[in-house]
């Protein structure tokens, strides 16, 4: 093990393994309104990650004893296609998918005016067709737009961004390769950018308080970049343009963001 060539996660010129800078996101494409049958939907590519999110509802909550008279249930289903990972995944949902569904649904619920829809269900389906680190955040980001597309009133769009550590560096939007670093720490983060409220936050690994302080600021900045892309995708859909494909080269986008901050 000690003999393996050590990987340099950020080189002297500040470049990561894929050429990005520490605070730079991978290329992202977003298209709102892709599933004709759904009340709202979104297709999102984030690096190699490919996600389709669809929303059905609000609709009557059945069976009735699971209805909430104070507001809508938000049922979030995060699932990975069998071919979306390196080893074929068993099609049945695993414990990881169930946990991600739970925390993602709770994150969205924090942004939805659920009280306007008592005794209903809002079903949010997120399917991952290709993956390379960061799928839960890609899914949540797409799901947030599918909710807007479905006309569900929200206190703000939920925007997510992973931040973490690899090779001693704090980095946004880790790739699979970076997540496999021996000291890797992965911090999925989602906020309502307008208020900086944290609605999803998870973390595993060994992280010092000072590292967290730096990471959370980079993560929030990343979420704000995502928000701009989300808004752009929504305006394309709702200005009635015939949307074919929305390619946002994030590398140039993110440079602009850097200047703004």
């Amino acid at each position: 093990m000690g003999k393996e060539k050590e990987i340099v996660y950020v080189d002297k010129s500040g470049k990561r393994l894929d050429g990005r800078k520490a605070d730079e996101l991978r290329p992202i494409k977003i298209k709102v309104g892709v599933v004709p049958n759904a009340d709202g939907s979104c297709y999102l590519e984030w690096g190699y990650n490919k996600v389709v999110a669809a929303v059905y509802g609000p609709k009557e909550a059945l069976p009735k004893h699971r209805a909430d008279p104070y507001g809508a249930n938000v049922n979030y289903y995060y699932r990975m296609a069998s071919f979306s990972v390196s080893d074929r995944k068993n099609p049945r949902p695993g414990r990881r998918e169930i946990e991600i569904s739970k925390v993602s649904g709770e994150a969205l619920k924090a942004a939805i005016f659920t009280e306007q829809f008592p005794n209903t269900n809002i079903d949010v389906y997120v399917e991952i067709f290709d993956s390379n680190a960061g799928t839960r955040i890609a899914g949540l980001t797409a799901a947030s737009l599918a909710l807007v597309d479905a006309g569900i009133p929200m206190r703000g769009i939920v925007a997510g961004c992973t931040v973490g550590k690899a090779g001693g560096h704090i980095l946004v939007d880790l790739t699979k390769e970076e997540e496999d670093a021996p000291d890797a720490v992965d911090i999925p983060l989602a906020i309502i950018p307008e208020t900086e409220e944290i609605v999803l936050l998870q973390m595993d690994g060994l992280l010092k308080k000072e590292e967290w302080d730096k990471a959370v600021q980079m993560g929030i900045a990343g979420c704000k970049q995502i928000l701009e892309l989300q808004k752009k995708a929504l305006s394309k859909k709702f200005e009635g343009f015939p949307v074919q494909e929305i390619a946002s080269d994030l590398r140039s986008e993110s440079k602009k963001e850097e200047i703004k901050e």
Partner: protein
Amino acid sequence: MQNIIWELESDKIRKTVLENKRLDERAFDEYRPIELTTNISHNADGSCQVKLGKTEVMVGVKSVLGTPYPDKQNEGSISVNMEFLPIASPEFEYGPPSSESIETARVVDRGLREAKALDFTKLCIIEGEKIWVVFLDIYTLNQDGNLFDASSIGCLKALSEAKLPKLDENNVIIPYEYDKKLELKRHPLLSTFVKIGNSVLVDPTLGEEKASSARFSIATTEDDYITAFQKGGKASGSFSVQEIDQCIETAFKRAKELRKKFFGKK
């Protein structure tokens, strides 16, 4: 509510068919436009997205190592599975596969297997010990009828694009490295029909499926074989021998066009 809407839609479709027309103005033997996009997942060994009108499915291929069946020591195997994702329709839900999704997967599976579309002996790594099991997983993205044909062409295209993973000297898969392409010996394609009143329509929309009394599917190959029949349908319908002959003719014609367009077959 949903049901009432479909009832009204069905009435309308049946009346239109009585006038020898379809709601979307197609001829009875006319398919909807088809689009195929390949290589949609870098983790899959081969993949294909199919749009058939507003119907949409995703197909991915993953080959995994397995052991041969006792009676087929020198042959690999395929396994077709289908998930009716609730993304695609308010009528779909998670849980154990429905009989509809099982039927679709099995008809596609047999269509490939029994037509000997692949040379299964080429999926054998060590006779009696190690083989490739080629998984084909179909996911619905939008349900507007005729998932049979969308799945059939999607699987065939994904297979035709798929490569086998590379193995190291211990016959362990090397991730993201690939060996030769899978070679297709035949290109069986399914054509599905429904019966509405006394008319037989190819490539039904969801509305047409719901308005129909019976369903019939036929797979055909470039070397003039019929390789699969499947009669079904939830209502009290049946087909005459003459109707089936008419379907066979259309199926051969249509499959030929699709093979030319998507598989470069003359």
